[in-house]
């Protein structure tokens, strides 16, 4: 943990001394839990995020079929289909590959994301019409993913190190009890000022996320449903619904044919691998 945060300091030029100090306070507080009888909200928030990550770790890699249904306020619908492949990298950012099947005109188009904990992600796109692999900017974190209500930053791996965390309260969520934490993006690329996340206290699964825009107004709400247990250990959400409160538009993202510890090879998550992704 300390190492990660130290690397982060090196990678970020815009951090002021004060933020550095604050970040180190968090990492100290998160250290040996015995020190703090009643941990600070920041320490508790980080603890929840770390626990949630820990429980998701070790899945090796993942293959899933994704269907996105985009809906306008007037009820117009459009469907996107893609395959998702994620390769877990121990103690570093994951590698993710999206290959599009629908709409047919973008069939074969693929994205490769190398997530990083200490610097902006690397992002490449493969355009089958020209057989061209193109490195693209990952600074458009708040941009729409394929015209949906999900932004790139909502879809790609949310590395804990890219936020500061703060525990707010416990409250019931359905039949469960949830912790409500606030996470604030550290980078300037994010379209959000903050997010509120509901994790259940039993399994640390996220159930609801509220996204506040840069003016600190509630922009979007994500509700997560249909969790399924895989390999007796990993909870994977079958349905995620993102509602945009400003536009009335919504997107439902459904996962099917989920396979964890899939037989994937890291070589498929390179620029040359991207060329043959399909």
């Amino acid at each position, binding site marked *: 943990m300390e190492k990660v945060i130290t690397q982060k300091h090196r990678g970020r030029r815009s951090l002021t001394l004060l933020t550095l100090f604050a970040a180190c306070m968090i990492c100290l507080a998160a250290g040996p839990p015995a020190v703090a009888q009643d941990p600070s909200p920041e320490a508790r928030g980080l603890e929840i995020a770390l626990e949630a990550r820990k429980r998701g770790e070790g899945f090796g890699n993942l293959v899933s079929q994704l269907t996105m249904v*985009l809906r*306008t306020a007037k009820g*117009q619908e*459009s*469907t996107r289909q893609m395959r998702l492949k994620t390769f877990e990298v121990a103690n570093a950012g994951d590698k993710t590959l999206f290959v599009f099947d*629908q*709409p*047919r*005109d*973008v*069939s*074969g188009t693929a994205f490769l994301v190398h997530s990083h904990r200490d610097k*902006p992600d*690397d992002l490449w796109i493969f355009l089958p019409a*020209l*057989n*061209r*692999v*193109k*490195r*693209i*900017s*990952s*600074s*458009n974190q*708040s*941009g*729409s993913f*394929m*015209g949906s209500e999900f932004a790139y930053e909502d879809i790609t791996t949310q590395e804990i190190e890219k936020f500061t965390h703060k525990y707010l309260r416990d409250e019931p969520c359905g039949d469960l009890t949830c912790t409500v934490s606030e996470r604030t993006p550290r980078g300037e*690329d994010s*379209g959000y000022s903050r997010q509120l996340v509901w994790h259940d206290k039993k399994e640390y699964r996220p159930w609801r996320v509220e996204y506040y825009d840069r003016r600190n107004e509630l922009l979007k709400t994500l509700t997560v449903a249909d969790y399924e247990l895989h390999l007796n250990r990993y909870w994977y959400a079958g349905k995620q619904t993102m509602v945009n409160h400003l536009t009335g538009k919504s997107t439902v993202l459904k996962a099917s044919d989920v396979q964890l510890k899939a037989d994937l*090879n890291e*070589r498929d998550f*390179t*620029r*040359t*691998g991207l060329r*043959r992704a*399909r």
Partner: protein
Amino acid sequence: MARRPVPRRAKLAVAGIAALGIATLGITTGASGESLIDSHEISGSVTVENRWFPKTAANAEQKDFGVNLIAAPELYLESADGTSLTLEGFYRYDSSDSVRSHADLRKAYLLLVGQIEDQEWELRLGVDRVFWGVAESRHLVDIVNQTDLVENPSEEVKLGQPMAHLTLSGEWGAAELFALPYHRPRTFPGRHGRLRSAFVVDNDRVMYESGAEEWHFDVAARYSHSVGLFDVGLSVFDGTSREPNLQPAFPLCALDPGACVLVPLYEQIRQYGLDAQMTYEAWLLKLEAIRRMGARNALGEEEDYTAFVAGGEYTFYAVFDTDIDLGLLAEWNRDSRQMRAPNIFQNDIFAAVRLAFNDFASTDLLVGILEDVDTRSRSFNAQFNRRLSDSLTLNVEATFFHNIAADDAAYATRRDNFVNIGLTYSF
């Protein structure tokens, strides 16, 4: 220097490769008769296009309007061990220019992948398309495939190229080796077509510098790597040039100027290439540069030269409180031969605006201008794409030439402003 017509041989070669593909398919099916094919996919597109030239042509025989039909089917087969076969065909019918009506085998290759310790290897055998480079206004370093020029004067569309393509990659980057046993001549518009030179290029009479003609064994290699903000590629090509030197067929010209044609001459060249991109926040900074030896200039003299295209792109995300991304592009093309360069890019500035609407229909618009710094000749290009349904897309492209100087390489096309409207059904 060898000189003779190449009538149907290219087509024979393509047919041969297709046969090879089908044979491979037979092998993949296995001796036991049990299918080894784990999955297959049939896809492709059909397009209806209208291309209209509002100005009357420079030559009376050139047509103003063409109705086009394009089919591009694709078949993909994969065996359980990950070996795959890709077949992609292409056919265009153009009512205005019989030469532009053409078929091509875009892809027909067997793909094998494996691993040796930490290194990955990938082998592609057959016909494929390869893209090198980063720039938008011109694909300077990109040399493996021949340009399918009748498709679009932008030189962006390529013909399939027979090759053996080996890639080795690891933490250190990727090294690629290409064996290119066969040369495909560039497609030029016919007598009735627009966007052509003043004299028609005779596609059936091709000359080669090498005695081996189109069977000269060309080789190429590329090393590329991505480190932090930088993606860099270094390449070398040795063999038959993809860009011909156009030679007037003099005896015919003297007898009858109307029958005068240009004959493409393909020389033996060597080209070193560099392409690099730096991706920093919303900036993309790009450079492509080549050094080419052995090619003739516009005066017909052999002249070694250096050329580059340098520039970049900056994107403003979510402008005017909408979902629209606005990109600004600028690139400078330069050629050390200056006015002796046989193409239009001797000293040209490209500037463009790209709008990505990020809507349901994936609407995007690119409007650009290419201005010759020396001659002040200008061309404007606009491209608009919009999805109409899950399988139907609309593409509109317009190009306008303005103030084309008599000494500019684009002079013959000065009256060839065009609007192209296409409707594509993808399956």
